[in-house]
């Protein structure tokens, strides 16, 4: 067979453009054969090719045993290929590694440095607790190796060992500490140790506090920026524990900030000061403020001076962290931050946007929002419009087309900005209403169909990513409900949006924006119909035939609004002759619209449509009378349906604060023996003979009628088919028997709460269930004793909730904003018991790529006598491990034999194209020599029986 090198493979790949997959498959087949040869050169080359193909997603997990073989090669370069194969292809479920324990031990203590490095850099990828335990002594010994290259790798390797086997850290830490404290130690080793400590630091900061002086020394004296960055990162986690540290650190850090030319170090210093909480304390205020000013100044410099987008980005990132504690300092940098809102880079814009939300005050809100609105307008406007406005020198860059998701993000941020703290920052609500109307027009048209939609599905944040359109509609509704002062404006804005002739401009055809906005808006025009400019026109828009195609979530809101607006129309126009005919006409149109929805597939829509349809038909009928006056139904009854108490906003948490009456038991089961009850119910019962005929009628459509006939006419002789017998067993029984069984059954279920006795017999007394309840409660349920909490809905405006406001001044707004209504219970229990969503378990779901270091958190380092694994424990562990190794080795051996005999698919499986390769497999099998495959099968069966003999505990 022709033997290819990796070079040939790559070259061949190029020569087979278009047919790459076939080429790869054939190469994989070759590799499969080559890797089984005894020739180590061939084996290693084949493995190298497999590793290369694995990079493109071609599975090579089947070759793990061969990886081990190559790892054990005597030649270094081959060995390296083997170790690389282990790094790239071993997965948590790869078991063969246990077989390699001895090999790894041997390689770790070898004399050649490159050889020794291989296990050290490979182990972090493949380490398991048992492997860590057996290799620990050997790895520890490498800490005192003469070469710094080995020492630094060993330190890191030990860190990864400790992640899966925390005990390792107890033994390793004293030694690592020695290296860290040693002034004579090689710089690389110290840096590696610092890097490891930095990883461990945030998990167990207390253990590293004693080392602070040494870190300090390294920070000041080393002159190594890489290490300095890490030390500062480390200090940021230590300072919260030791306030005295901040005082010591302040000077050197300021010194670095003022002198260093390395931007990364400068940035990390500032970041460290922020994250370490150095700016947060109370004492020494003046110095702190100086530092804060210095930091913010430097950050401003990073944004302004350099055109480097990276610096801009990280500076904004840092400002975002400061803004919580020093909002005034940050808002002084407003000008540059605002410029970042127009930056060409989306990442920078988003950061600036976030910052804007954090620092905005009522003075700056309007300019910021207007600026963002401008941006949105530019994004949605065609390029021609930009030519008209060349004077906007602020943004000389050519505005690129922003992705829709950025535009949506901006809309969300605008809404966040304005609605934060219950609209406390908004002075001019009329302006806000106008903004909302503008936003509707600026929404990117195809929100639902762009290619980000499948990303959103994965982003499981439905609340945050609520449909933008719906959110705008909801905002308009919120303003209308909460701010009485602009209710008229809000209603008129809603009105303008709901007009049919306006809709085409706001909602381009084919987009789904309208669906979200229209629902809440329809509610507003209905609820506050008295403010409408033209109720008549609004009503006609509401009953426009095109509305019938709206989604079933929106339609009920329309339906609810129609009668409200109709009442308004009927009341505003002058009663008289024409009035009557006008109203009849209008009613006829409304009724026509409703009739169209009376058969709507959505039940909610259907129900509402039919209800109002009937009411309005009555109204239409009442108009046909000859009297001149307004019919009572129209003048009073229908309006009464919708007037009454005004609706106020209620906090979503209010319901959970309603105190449950003590006697209400929601947790207690009705019966403790549910399964038993159901079992009894399952048995066929003659009691059902009452319903027998009906059930028979429904369930045995074909048979029942002749059956019934046969029973009725001639039960004995006329039974034409034997099969009917089965069905006629019960009817053949005499009626007395039925009666008897019925009684039996009733007796049996007398105390069964699920069984309601026929009313005829129990003569109207309470059901057994009721009785059971009564007896268990001890007394008759007293409904009056359930406390009723006064909801105080009638009160005018309830308190405004300013709790969440930070150190902000009270709202400047002249208008009163109604806060959410809720209960002011002193009962804090009600608050805490409220589920907080996912916040309670932030780490419940592990992120991809995450290395779990949590096990280190509960390990105690240092002080006590350095714990040794007791000899006994170690021995038994070792014995167990050896046993496992032996088992796995056996299994692997069998598996490899099986592969040879059975001729498993010669080609590998491309993971991302599973189906395709599977077909290949099938076809390959087909061409196999039948006799061989027969043998294979036989052997396989043998294997199976062997396998089944294995002790069950093996897995």
């Amino acid at each position, binding site marked *: 067979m022709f033997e290819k090198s990796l070079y040939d493979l790559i070259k061949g790949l190029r020569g087979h453009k278009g047919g790459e997959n076939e080429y790869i498959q054939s190469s994989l087949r070759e590799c499969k054969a080559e890797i089984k040869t005894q020739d180590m050169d061939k084996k290693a080359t084949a493995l190298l090719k497999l590793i290369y193909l694995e990079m493109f997603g071609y599975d090579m997990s089947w070759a793990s045993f061969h990886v081990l073989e190559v790892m054990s090669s005597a030649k270094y370069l081959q060995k390296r290929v083997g170790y690389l194969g282990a790094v790239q292809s071993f997965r948590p479920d790869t078991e063969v590694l246990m077989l390699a324990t001895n090999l790894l031990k041997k390689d770790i203590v070898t004399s050649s440095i490159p050889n020794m490095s291989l296990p050290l850099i490979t182990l972090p990828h493949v380490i398991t607790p048992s492997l860590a335990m057996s290799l620990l002594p050997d790895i520890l010994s490498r800490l005192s190796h003469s070469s710094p290259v080995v020492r630094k790798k060993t330190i890191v390797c030990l860190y990864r060992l400790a992640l899966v086997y925390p005990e390792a850290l107890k033994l390793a830490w004293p030694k690592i500490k020695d290296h860290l404290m040693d002034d004579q130690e090689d710089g690389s080793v110290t840096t590696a140790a610092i*890097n490891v400590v930095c990883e461990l630091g945030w998990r167990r900061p207390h253990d590293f506090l004693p080392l602070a002086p040494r870190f300090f020394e390294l920070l000041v004296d080393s002159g190594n920026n890489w290490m300095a960055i890490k030390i500062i990162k480390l200090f940021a986690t230590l300072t919260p524990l030791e306030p005295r540290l901040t005082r010591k650190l302040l000077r050197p850090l300021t010194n670095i900030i003022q002198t260093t030319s390395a931007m990364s170090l400068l940035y990390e210093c500032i970041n460290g000061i922020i994250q370490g909480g150095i700016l947060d304390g109370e004492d020494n205020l003046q110095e702190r403020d100086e530092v804060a000013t210095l930091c913010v100044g430097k950050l401003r410099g990073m944004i302004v001076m350099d055109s480097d987008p990276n610096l801009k980005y990280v500076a904004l990132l840092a400002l975002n962290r400061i803004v919580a504690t020093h909002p005034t300092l940050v808002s002084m940098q407003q000008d540059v931050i605002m410029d970042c809102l127009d930056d060409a880079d989306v990442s920078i814009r988003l950061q600036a946007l976030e910052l804007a939300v954090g620092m905005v005050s009522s003075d700056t809100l309007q300019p910021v929002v207007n600026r963002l609105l401008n941006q949105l307008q530019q994004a949605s406007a065609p390029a021609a419009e930009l030519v008209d406005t060349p004077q906007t020198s602020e943004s000389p860059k050519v505005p690129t087309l922003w992705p829709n998701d950025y535009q949506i993000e901006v809309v969300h941020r605008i809404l966040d900005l304005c609605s934060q703290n219950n609209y406390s920052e908004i002075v001019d609500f009329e302006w806000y209403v106008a903004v909302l109307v503008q936003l509707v027009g600026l929404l990117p048209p195809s929100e639902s169909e762009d290619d980000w939609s499948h990303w959103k599905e994965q982003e499981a944040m439905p609340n945050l990513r609520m449909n933008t359109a719906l959110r705008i509609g909801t905002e308009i509704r919120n303003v209308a409900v909460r701010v009485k002062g602009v209710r008229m404006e809000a209603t008129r804005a809603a009105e303008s949006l709901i007009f049919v002739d306006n809709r085409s401009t706001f909602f381009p055809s084919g987009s789904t924006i309208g669906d979200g906005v229209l629902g809440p808006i329809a509610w507003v025009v209905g609820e506050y119909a008295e403010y409408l400019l033209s109720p008549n026109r609004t009503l006609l828009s509401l009953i426009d035939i095109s509305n019938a195609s709206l989604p079933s979530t929106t339609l009920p809101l329309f339906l609810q609004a129609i009668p409200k607006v109709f009442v308004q129309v009927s009341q505003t126009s002058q009663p008289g002759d024409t009035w009557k005919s006008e109203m009849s006409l209008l009613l006829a149109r409304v009724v026509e619209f409703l009739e169209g929805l009376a058969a709507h597939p959505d039940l909610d829509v259907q129900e509402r449509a039919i209800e109002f349809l009937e009411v309005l038909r009555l109204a239409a009928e009442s108009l046909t009378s000859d009297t001149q006056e307004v019919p009572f139904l129209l003048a009073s009854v229908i309006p009464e349906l919708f007037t009454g108490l005004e609706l106020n906003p209620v906090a979503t948490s209010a319901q959970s604060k309603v105190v449950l009456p003590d006697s209400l038991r929601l947790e207690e089961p009705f019966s403790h023996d549910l399964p038993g009850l159901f079992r009894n119910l399952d048995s066929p019962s003659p009691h059902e003979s009452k319903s027998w005929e009906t059930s028979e009628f429904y369930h045995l459509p074909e048979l029942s009628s002749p059956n019934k006939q046969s029973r009725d006419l001639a039960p004995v002789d006329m039974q034409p088919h034997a099969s009917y017998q089965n069905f006629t067993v019960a009817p053949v029984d005499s009626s007395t028997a039925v009666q008897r069984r019925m009684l039996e059954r009733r007796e049996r279920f007398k105390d069964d709460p699920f069984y309601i006795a026929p009313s005829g017999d129990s003569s109207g007394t309470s059901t057994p269930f009721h009785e059971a309840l009564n007896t268990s409660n001890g007394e008759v349920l007293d409904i009056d004793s359930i406390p009723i909490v006064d909801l105080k809905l009638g009160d005018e405006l309830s308190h405004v909730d300013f709790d969440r406001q930070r150190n902000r001044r009270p709202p400047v707004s002249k208008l009163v904003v109604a806060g959410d209504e809720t209960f002011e219970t002193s009962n804090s229990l009600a608050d805490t018991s409220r589920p907080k969503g996912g916040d309670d378990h932030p780490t419940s779901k592990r992120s991809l790529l995450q290395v779990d270091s949590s096990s280190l958190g509960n390990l105690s380092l240092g002080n006590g006598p350095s714990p040794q694994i007791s000899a006994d424990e170690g021995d038994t562990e070792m014995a167990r491990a050896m046993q496992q190794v032996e088992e796995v080795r056996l299994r692997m051996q069998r598996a490899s034999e099986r592969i040879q005999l059975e001729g498993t698919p010669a080609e590998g499986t491309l993971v991302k194209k599973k189906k395709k390769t599977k077909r290949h497999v099938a076809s390959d099998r087909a061409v196999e020599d039948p006799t061989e495959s027969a043998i294979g099968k036989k052997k396989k069966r043998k294997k199976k029986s062997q396998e089944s003999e294995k002790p069950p505990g093996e897995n």
Partner: protein
Amino acid sequence: MINAVLVFNNNGQPRLTKFYTQLDTQTQQSLIAQIYRLVAQRPASACNFLPLPPLLSQGASSSASGPSDAPTQITYRTYATLSFIMISTSTESPLALIDLIQVFVEALDRMFENVCELDLIFGYETLHAVLGEMIVGGVVVETNIEKIIAAVRAQEGSLGKKKAVQAASTSLGRGALPGLGAWR
């Protein structure tokens, strides 16, 4: 720590994948694809930080600025036809990571003498060896180019160089490689 180092070309074809946690091949591939999509969208003038792709943002609940085990930052840098990506947790400094990528590329440049994409394709093992001298188990062990080069040379003897030269000197002349990007 650094969770993964990736290198792919302008067409999204991987040139180096190194995950410091064990991850099944399929997830690796989809992660690469997602990151490639993010990188491909960005103009050259944009900053070198990527938002988290969907696969990673799922588990990252860290709204807090405090450190955690979950990867929170992706730093990338593009050189000619190749993009170098580092996925890391918050214990790494973003600006330092950009420098680290620079060190990596410079080291490769020293190893291959005027490194180009083709060198990395053929010098696949050397590429891994260089990375292995810089990052072990997700922790940076060396940033000094001299030391990195010395260690890799010690491993390979004269071999690494020879391979690259051989690759360049055979029928596929290094200078004349149209459509290099479409290579696998």
